[in-house]
């Protein structure tokens, strides 16, 4: 027996956990979810809601027996001890929990019909599981302030609040901004924005997520949709290079809201407000149409244009006059296949663009990074770097375009405008734009192919620390929008290069298996970059990755 781990039994199941683990966490290890309101794995323990009350019996080594519990104790507060016995659903515990529920519901206005939390409310769920009894209260319920705005994004309803203090602990211990506090005593206690300040930090929406009842709701989601109509798809936020793991709540045609998804080491449980608003940007996106312009004529279908682009690429094989610029919104699989294709064609002028800059936020200690693009690290690691011998980086490509040396330029992905002046592109004979956003160049480029956005395709992104996250398709793409990976497969076929992967799934498998690729380590989540600052230095020249 080691001293840094303890073994205890939870409802008869033995479980070994590190010393200092709370009983509620140990129970979760054992596959037992103890009901709770105030406990949250990302917040310090408070132990005020008493819902996780359990029969906890400690081992008395002198008497060599378990000491019978005098009264049930809260599982979120008690440390797991060696040989401890925990019973989570004995009749006494159930009775105690029903009593706790009754107390919590004494002054709760049962206004579930107008509450946005209904359907994902812990109070509703636990009432059905643990109480199911009518209220015994005959007096009028206590009235508290309702519809109190907490900043611009949160609305507080004091009557629904059960004072679990999750929100105040979030502002105290996670954002460390100390905006919220519980004031007054007894049944007059409410949550307030302290000192007349404004609740306006960049992570305010998290308090609505962690609120176990509908006391704190989001103005953005207010009365928009009942939660049981939502479909949930796992996704990744592309708002910055943190790649917060998210759940996209949508109805198949439009995104209703974006919620954070637990991912240890990346975003833990949290997400910033700007990332949640990214769906508005997505909805307002102007989408391009497949176009081919040759000799003043305009037309073409997506498949014929793809073939034309592929043949054009093959024409410029081993040529010094072709260059490819890739947006950092490309997925790892696409970047891997694109770099493979260009490697086979010996097109060495290849680099990642600066990408989006308009959404840049100041980096902070919690989540924000200074790069408002999701996958610069993954694209570089997957091989979107200039050829080591003669390849040109982005600055050299720019200089070559100015000098009129580039005849064929492929722009993959949106937001190239921060690197290239659209007027500069008139010096290039053939500009091919493959993007999900219609912009100034889409009206003049020789070929335009529409891509699917992050919400409409599958893929993986790798964040600035090397953690890879997978996003899945949540929305139906607009007619004609092409999947980036499928398009690259067709480009490979048109250029006469045998694709190393049969499908996206195959590519993901190969990414893990290919021993020469750094992406292997990325997908495993173990990759660390040698020098992080070098990664974000958008300088020309070959980079050692």
């Amino acid at each position, binding site marked *: 027996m080691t001293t840094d781990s303890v073994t205890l039994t939870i409802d008869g199941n033995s479980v070994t956990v590190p010393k200092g683990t709370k009983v509620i966490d140990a129970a979760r290890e054992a596959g037992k979810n103890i009901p709770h309101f105030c406990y949250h794995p990302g917040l310090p323990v408070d132990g005020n809601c008493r819902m996780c009350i359990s029969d906890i019996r400690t081992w008395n080594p002198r008497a060599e027996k378990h000491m019978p519990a005098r009264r049930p104790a809260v599982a979120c507060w008690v440390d797991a001890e060696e040989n401890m016995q925990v019973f989570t659903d004995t009749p006494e515990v159930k009775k105690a929990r029903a009593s706790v529920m009754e107390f919590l519901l004494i002054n709760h206005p049962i206004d579930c*019909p107008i509450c946005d939390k209904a359907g994902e409310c812990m109070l509703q769920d636990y009432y059905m599981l643990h109480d199911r009894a009518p209220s015994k209260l005959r007096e009028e319920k206590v009235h508290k302030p309702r519809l109190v705005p907490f900043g611009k994004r949160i609305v507080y309803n004091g009557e629904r609040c059960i004072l679990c203090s999750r929100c105040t602990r979030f502002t105290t211990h996670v954002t460390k901004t100390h905006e919220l506090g519980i004031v007054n005593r007894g049944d007059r206690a409410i949550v307030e924005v302290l000192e007349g300040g404004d609740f306006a930090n960049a992570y305010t929406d998290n308090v609505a997520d962690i609120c176990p009842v509908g006391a704190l709701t989001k103005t953005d989601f*207010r*009365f*928009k949709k009942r939660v049981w*109509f939502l479909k949930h798809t796992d996704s990744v936020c592309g708002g910055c290079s943190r790649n917060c793991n998210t759940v996209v709540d949508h109805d198949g045609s439009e995104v209703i809201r974006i919620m954070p998804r637990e991912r240890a080491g990346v975003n833990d449980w949290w997400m910033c407000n700007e990332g949640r608003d990214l769906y508005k940007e997505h909805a307002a996106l102007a989408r391009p149409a497949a176009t081919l312009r040759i000799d003043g004529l305009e037309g073409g279908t997506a498949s014929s244009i793809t073939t034309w682009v592929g043949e054009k690429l093959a024409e410029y094989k081993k040529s010094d006059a072709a260059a490819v610029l890739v947006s950092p919104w490309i997925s790892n699989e696409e970047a891997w296949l694109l770099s493979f294709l260009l490697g086979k064609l010996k097109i060495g002028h290849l680099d990642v663009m600066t990408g989006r800059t308009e959404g840049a936020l100041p980096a902070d200690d919690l989540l924000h990074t200074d790069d408002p693009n999701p996958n610069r690290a993954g694209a570089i690691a997957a091989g979107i770097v200039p050829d080591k011998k003669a390849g040109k980086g982005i600055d050299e490509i720019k200089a070559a375009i100015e000098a009129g040396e580039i005849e064929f330029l492929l722009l993959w992905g949106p937001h190239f405008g921060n690197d290239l002046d659209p007027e500069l592109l008139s010096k290039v004979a053939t500009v091919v734009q493959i993007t999900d956003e219609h912009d100034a160049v889409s009206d003049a480029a020789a070929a335009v192919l529409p891509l699917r956005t992050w919400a409409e395709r599958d893929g993986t992104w790798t964040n600035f620390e090397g953690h890879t996250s997978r996003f899945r398709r949540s929305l139906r793409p607009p007619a004609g929008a092409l999947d980036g990976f499928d398009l690259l497969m067709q480009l490979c076929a048109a250029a006469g290069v045998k694709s190393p992967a049969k499908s996206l799934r195959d590519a993901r498998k190969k990414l893990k298996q290919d021993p020469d690729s750094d992406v292997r380590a990325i997908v495993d989540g173990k990759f660390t970059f040698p020098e992080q600052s070098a990664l974000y230095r958008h300088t020309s020249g070959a980079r050692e990755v």
Partner: protein
Amino acid sequence: MGTQRGKNKGFENLVDGQVLPQPAYQGEFTEGEIVQYYNPESMTWAERIYLPYVLAGLGLTAKVFLRNMVTWFVWLTYWVRGKGAEAKRGATTIYYPHEMRPDFSPVNRGKHILTMRDNDDPQCVACYMCATACPAFCIHIVAGEHPDPAIEKYPVRFDIEIDKCIFCGYCEEACPVDAIRLTTDVHLVDYKRERMVYDREYLLTWKPTYVEEEHVYPGDRPRKS
């Protein structure tokens, strides 16, 4: 086997000992063989010459006509005395839509109504319970912020596609605030499909008037004062 089936009219070709007609793909046809796939003719001689049955049909029509006529004349004698409603009418048909049946059950489920508050606002709080319970997906609600913070949520739009509705009454049952009810009105007709979507203003037609006696149901025990 075929003894039971052979008794049935029209299945005479299926009696024992006879070879049933085979489908074309199972065997070859011999030259000159006639395969009978249809039922044999089974009309009687009287049926085949039609005339007796034509006369029988005319007789039935005449019988009904005369009976109705006599009944109408009897009804007329009542009607001239102003007692038309008491007597039996000559025909069971009614002149819809000028005349409508009065005998629908009081619990018949028909057109929906939205109940109103005292200030003519909808009682509905746009909780979507009816839309959730609806098996025909015919209720469409858009919720909005009510100017009165005590009400908070109300339906900006409330549309029922009445031609999709199956009148199951689940919406009425699911409603937590008694905002939607089904009336006995079944006359839901229009010339345009688009007009079969009933909007909030059309449904908001009824304000409940609370009378103390109405809340006492037959099964209720008298309250102790």
